[in-house]
């Protein structure tokens, strides 16, 4: 039975639970529903929740655990001799899965039936060509052990699938029957279903929190590995970044941190004034009609993929800056530069600053504007002295949001600023950022357990701590202003 059908069955049971629960409550009341503690709808709801939620939870858990269990059982069938030179057990396991999927296809297309398949043996039939016929490509010749493992994999998969279907439907029916039986006029269905919903909400927020912890934990673990291989002192204090394939690398964070801050700074220097001024124009000066046209037009900028901005930086802005600014001023001849990436990133950030600030400025009450105009203030005096101070906490928030976007941006930097880690003040020099190096170190062809690769996690950790700090500062600033103005 497929997953979709199973889901439909659960939904059907839950829906039936709702209808029957209501009906039963109505019957229990003897026709006068006012005698019930809770409205009939709540009785229905509680039956529905008890039928659906435990069954769905079981389903989710099962789907999560099943592949692990099966692989554990099947892994025993693979002998060390089946693992080719330079490969790993994991690669062989993925071959097993591929072959199993392929066999499913072969059977589904009617080329073989189950009993033929059971009799089939890898040393007698050319399994590889059979699989190729249905469009499944397997890299190497399939060894008998792998083939047997694949068959076992299929068998277990079907078996577990059936067990799961039965278990899930049983749980749904049990919940359905139990909660339906509990319905009496005194039964506090309203409190029960409220409590149930509350638990659901708490569980959902826990998922978000736990995920965050999970991310931090995985970063932390790998960072610790890194610092076991590479001295923390060098990482934090060295001023050179020079990874080598054969060890002996210099992995100082400073050139990267500097690049990150420099590019972000240039981007914000451009985006904040432009974004803020366009927000002021849109919210205070522009007519309604113009605003309704211009605002979405600016927001389109936010929808452009950053790789497209990167192209723009690479082919247009970079050469332009080089030919008209850097070379005439004698500041270098590289088309990828901090300035290129910063400017293009700044353009990308304009909608973040302007759209949010515009909403915030609009939320400043009209009565404050009236008060200022009523005292004979001009529009720009009103904006500068009343509206901007009142909107400041929100604007600071918008700017910090833009800042964390800038710090985390990768694509524009790769294409606009290059990949050379350098500590330099000249904005027309190529530099690079933490995010770019995380990508290049992780995708490089060094071994995973080498400091050259693991440094990516330490860099990620630093980035995380950095943006966290930024957010804390933002919260502090915003709260301080709020205290003052509320």
């Amino acid at each position, binding site marked *: 039975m497929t997953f979709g059908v199973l889901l439909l069955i659960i939904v059907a049971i839950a829906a039936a639970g709702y209808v029957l629960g209501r009906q039963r409550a109505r019957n229990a009341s003897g026709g006068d529903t006012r005698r019930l503690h809770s409205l009939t709808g709540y009785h229905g709801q509680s039956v529905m929740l008890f039928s659906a939620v435990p069954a769905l939870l079981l389903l989710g858990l099962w789907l999560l655990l099943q592949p692990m269990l099966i692989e554990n059982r099947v892994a025993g069938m693979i002998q060390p001799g089946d693992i080719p030179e330079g490969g790993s057990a994991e690669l062989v396991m993925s071959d097993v899965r591929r072959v199993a999927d392929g066999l499913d296809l072969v059977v589904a297309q009617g080329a073989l039936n189950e009993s033929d398949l059971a009799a089939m043996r890898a040393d007698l039939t050319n399994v590889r060509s059979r699989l190729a016929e249905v469009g499944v490509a397997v890299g190497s010749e399939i060894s008998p052990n792998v083939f047997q493992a694949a068959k076992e994999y299929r068998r277990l998969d079907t078996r577990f699938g059936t067990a799961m279907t039965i278990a899930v439907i049983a749980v749904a029916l049990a919940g359905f029957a139990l909660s339906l039986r509990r319905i009496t006029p005194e039964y506090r269905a309203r409190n029960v279903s409220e409590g149930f919903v509350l638990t659901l909400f708490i569980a959902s927020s826990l998922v978000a929190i736990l995920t965050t912890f999970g991310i931090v934990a995985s970063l932390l673990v790998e960072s610790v590995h890194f610092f076991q291989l590479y001295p923390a002192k060098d990482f934090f204090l060295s001023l050179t970044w020079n990874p080598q394939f054969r060890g002996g690398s210099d992995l100082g964070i400073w050139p990267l941190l500097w690049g990150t801050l420099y590019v972000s700074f240039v981007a914000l220097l451009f985006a904040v004034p432009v974004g803020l001024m366009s927000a002021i124009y849109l919210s205070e000066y522009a007519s309604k009609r113009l605003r309704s046209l211009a605002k979405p037009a600016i927001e389109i900028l936010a929808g452009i993929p950053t790789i497209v901005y990167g192209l723009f930086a690479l082919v247009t802005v970079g050469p332009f800056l080089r030919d008209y600014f850097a070379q005439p001023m004698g500041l270098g001849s590289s088309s990828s530069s901090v300035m290129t990436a910063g400017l293009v990133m700044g353009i990308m950030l304009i909608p973040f600053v302007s759209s949010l600030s515009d909403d915030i400025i609009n939320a400043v009450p009209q009565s*404050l504007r009236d008060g*200022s*105009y*009523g*005292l*004979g203030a001009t529009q720009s005096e009103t904006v500068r*002295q*009343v509206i901007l*101070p009142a909107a400041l906490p929100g604007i600071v928030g918008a700017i910090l949001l833009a800042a964390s976007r800038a710090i985390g941006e990768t694509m524009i930097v790769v294409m606009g600023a290059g990949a050379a880690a350098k500590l330099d003040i000249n904005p027309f020099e190529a530099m690079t950022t933490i995010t770019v190096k995380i990508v290049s170190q992780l995708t490089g062809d060094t071994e995973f357990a080498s400091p050259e690769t693991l440094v990516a996690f330490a860099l990620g950790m630093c980035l995380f701590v950095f943006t966290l700090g930024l957010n804390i500062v933002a919260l502090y600033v915003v709260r301080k202003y709020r205290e*003052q103005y509320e």
Partner: protein
Amino acid sequence: MNDMRLTEKSVEANDTKISARGVQVYYGDTHAIKDVDVDIADQTVTAFIGPSGCGKSTFLRCLNRMNDTIDVCRVEGNIKLDGDDIYDKRVDPVQLRAKVGMVFQKPNPFPKSIYDNVAYGPRIHGLTRSKAELDEVVEKSLRRAALWNEVKDRLQAPGTGLSGGQQQRLCIARAVATSPEVLLMDEPCSALDPIATAQVEELIDELRSRFAVIIVTHSMQQAARVSQRTAFFHLGNLVEFGETGQIFTNPSDPRTESYITGRIG
């Protein structure tokens, strides 16, 4: 009592500060003010009374062109301040509003310190030459709004942290500090207790020696106490306009009489 008679005499002697002729106001399709003619005398307190929604605030806002800030609002007719049409193209509404100050129906202090709230007008119009002078203006305005004693120790605290009644007096102080020629007050006492109300009424009486004051109020007693002239609005029409004593003792229109005695409203 002697004073009373003196002021009553002076009413006739005062020049016309604002004269409005055939004023119509529309909010989109709603006709909010219908053909109103009024003459506001200088150095006089004029009260606007009338049931809720009859257009008192709307008419008040015409006098300093605050209606310009409402998109859907359209004003027709002729309003003159000291003989000059205030809706003339050459008139800068910003300068007009410096001359015709306003206190709004709902208190709207700026999110700034108490001091900066009061100093706002003098600063933008460059009315003072030194910090000391500005301090003096702030103190004097706060004293006149009967707020000084409550805030003198916390002038740097945010104005939004005051109570509703204190905020309203802060807004009065803010308007007074700009030294306008005409002061429009839209229900300035609706959030005040009797003591503060009495203080504000005293202030209004004092302001009269220098400004023309127009006050919108829902309190008949207040209108009778502070004003020399009263205008009664009903459904966008100016029903009756005349000396306060006469309106309250001997109204000529039956609608005025029933409103004053509490039968419509």
